[in-house]
């Protein structure tokens, strides 16, 4: 796949830095002494075999887990851990490995929930759909419609999510994350379980998001082809330890990585 990108996208300074993160669940060491950084506007991939600690790492970044050791520096602010709500307010949005949508609601309503943080009107105002509530809903709907257009979800706008095929559900999840207008997007295996065509579409959407909105993207992915094609830099984890970090080419030629992960291929 050849992808024309990057020409207008300036990779900026480090916006997120994790230092010496260790995370344990009782005696299980999920992450040991992990450090890496993420630069503004880049696409950063985290790869590794099953159980390497990739999802745990994402969960540390957006505050689901609290690491026992280490610090997280986000926009220059050093913390021991993130708080999920704080993370969302700071512009971090995510999607999940196992789709987590409201299955009984339509695509449109699901994406509207992504606008939750942008709503300032009170419950009473909303109940009567009056003044500010009305204005806000119109604004939010417009934003959501732009995302529907961007991710080409027009044909399923009013369809309940439970009736959609898997690949489209994944796209709806991305749409909901984008509705929060995040500066950083965490994608947990956005292409898992997809066929080739769906993967290509998803790659295109991830690249377009990065390109058009300048969103920094941290993604976990199993498909090596995809990772090598779309990411700027890659972190490789194995058994909770970092064994490689660098551009796709550097990682590809790193002997430890080859041994741990690519060796089988």
């Amino acid at each position, binding site marked *: 796949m050849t992808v*024309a*990108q*990057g*020409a*207008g*996208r300036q990779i900026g300074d480090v916006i997120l830095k994790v230092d010496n993160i260790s995370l344990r669940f009782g005696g299980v060491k999920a992450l040991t002494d992990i450090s890496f950084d993420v630069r503004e506007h880049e696409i950063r991939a985290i790869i590794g075999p099953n159980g390497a600690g990739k999802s745990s790492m994402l969960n540390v970044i957006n505050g689901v887990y609290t690491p026992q050791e280490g610090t997280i520096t986000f926009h220059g602010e050093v913390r021991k851990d993130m708080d999920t709500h704080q993370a969302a307010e700071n512009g971090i949005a995510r999607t999940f490995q196992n789709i987590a949508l409201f299955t009984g609601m339509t695509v449109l309503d699901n994406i509207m929930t992504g606008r939750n943080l942008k709503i300032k009107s009170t419950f009473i105002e909303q109940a009567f759909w009056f003044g500010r509530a009305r204005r806000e809903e119109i604004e939010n*709907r*417009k934003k959501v*419609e*732009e995302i*529907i*257009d*961007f991710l*080409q979800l*027009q*044909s399923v*706008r*009013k369809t309940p999510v439970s009736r959609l095929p898997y690949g489209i559900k994944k796209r709806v999840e991305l749409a909901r994350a984008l509705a929060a207008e995040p500066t950083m997007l965490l994608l947990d295996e956005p292409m898992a379980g997809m066929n080739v065509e769906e993967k290509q579409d998803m790659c295109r959407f991830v690249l*377009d998001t990065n*390109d*058009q909105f300048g969103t920094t993207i941290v993604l976990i992915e199993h498909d090596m082809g995809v990772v090598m094609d779309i990411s700027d830099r890659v972190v490789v984890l194995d058994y909770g330890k970092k064994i490689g970090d660098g551009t796709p080419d550097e990682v590809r030629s790193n002997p430890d990585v080859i041994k741990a992960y690519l060796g089988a291929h």
Partner: protein
Amino acid sequence: MSVTSAPAAADTFPRLLSQHAAQRPEAPALREKYLGIWQTWSWRDTAAEVRAMAMGLAALGFKRGDNLAIIGDNRPQLYMAFAAAQSLGGVAVPMYQDAVAAEMTFVLENAVIRFAVVEDQEQVDKLLEARDSLPQIEHIIYADPRGLRNYNAPGLMGLEALRAKGDDFDAAHPGFFDTEVADGKTTDVSVMLYTSGTTGKPKGVCQTHEAFITAARGGVQFDHLVATDNVLSYLPMAWVGDHLFSYAQFLVAGFTVNCPESAETVMTDLREIGPTYYFAPPRVFESLLTNVSIRMEDASRIKRWLYDSLMMVAKRCGADIMDGKPVSAKDKWLYALGNMLVYGPLKNTLGMSRIRVAYTAGAAIGPDLFRFYRSIGINLKQLYGSTETCAYVCLQPDGQIKFDSVGTAAPGVEVKLADNGEVIVRGAMVLKEYYKRPDATAESIDSNGYFHTGDAGVFDSDGHLRIIDRAKDVGHLSTGAMFAPNYIENKLKFFSHIKEAVCFGHDKDNVTAFINIDLTAVGNWAERRNIVYSGYIDLAGKDEVYTLIKECVESVNAELATEGELSHSQIARFLILHKELDPDDDELTRTRKVRRGFISEKYAPLLDGLYTNKHMQHIETQVKFEDGRSGSIAADVKIMDATRFPAVNKAAA
């Protein structure tokens, strides 16, 4: 609008546009659903955008006689691009948006395309790829900038930028636009539509303003189309049907053209717009009906009973009520009830509540399908035409609808049959020429100005034209009677149990047929009758299946018996093939047309069997499996006689 000297007659498309903009500036011309909302362009907006676009093109060097490629889904901006090119005396060349770059190259090269207006990144990519071998492509203008922000190929420009350029040019050259529009002649070529090219290279069909305006005027008068009508345009812009309905008639009648949000949302958009005038090929009507049937099967028992019984009423009297024929009071009452409970809501779901006139063309439509729509009160009609005739030769007049004819000659069109049965037509709508192909032009337009359609037809007793086959496929039985294999095959294929049919009879004493059963339909039928079978070959050889197919063949024979000269083409003997015809075995083309010659050679023993008195014939055939290996199938194929009926005339039948 600046004042033009002596208002010219509205006899070119740009002049029609300015006439609408002057007379009814606020009326809606184009609509498109964007961000979930229908956005409207009034006639004034449309004329202003066309003007800016045309001036932008002029600033880039587009001039009289140049060709402008237009590629993309149906979008208001692209329809405006037609008018923009024509305003400058240029020719619009719409191209199929789903063609790959390599397929586009021929047309781009043949039409010497220097300017192209396209929809989006997808088309830009294709043109940039084509430009590697065709450096002549100078300017590519796109409507949707998405994903194109970082492209810096020379000559690539957004529509916004083009219009801005156009406004500057307009300010610097006042009066230029009006002079250009006034200079347009009705005999100028307005559009070049490429024929699909199933045989040989595509040919560019040059049509003048006059041709399409004549065709559009005729259709508008024939069906009383008015400015308040609405159409949904979703068929390819490069297809003659869309050009007639969504461009020529749009500018002649001044109705509103609505563009769907995306190709996938057409059904929803159709319901929202509720068009009053609708055009679709048979397959669209077929898939709509299939959806309805499937959903009815899932409905509760009471609903199903209601639907089934009221559809019986509709079938009995619906079409007659629409055609104003006498119907018993009881049926009238039942139909009104049905309309309230079933037909009305059904039409609403299909987005067809407001349809006054619907047309279908392009392929044969099954009688059941045709009757279904007419019976629920949708005025579905057929027309006949081709790219070379602006899709305007025959139309079915209201109240005189037959599923097997295409109606009478349209106003202003002269239709007759050549000695060999070929349909030939004359009128203003006939093409000016094939682009750069004087040989092809000379071949298809004779010295008297008749265009040879290549279709064989007959006129029935009411003077309605019936298209029976491609003229080159029509043969003669040894008795001299006409034999039209496609016509009979289509009749056979209208039965859901028959998937493919191949008829033989040229230079023979009588007509015979190979039949392919439809495994799903016949399999279903067999299961309900507890007939055990192991696969296609087994099922195809069952006596019960032969009896079933015999009934189908005989009812085709009964129909043919009423059709004058064609009554001699009744099927005498048939067999059910032991394998399904397959494009992988070269028996069908990729578009699933039967390759009669190849099949008759490959199955020569079976063909011999049909023309002897045998009732069983042994055959061995080579087959290719999907993994590329090949093997052979041997089978004993039964041959059965079918009853033929004495010819009767229609009145007696």
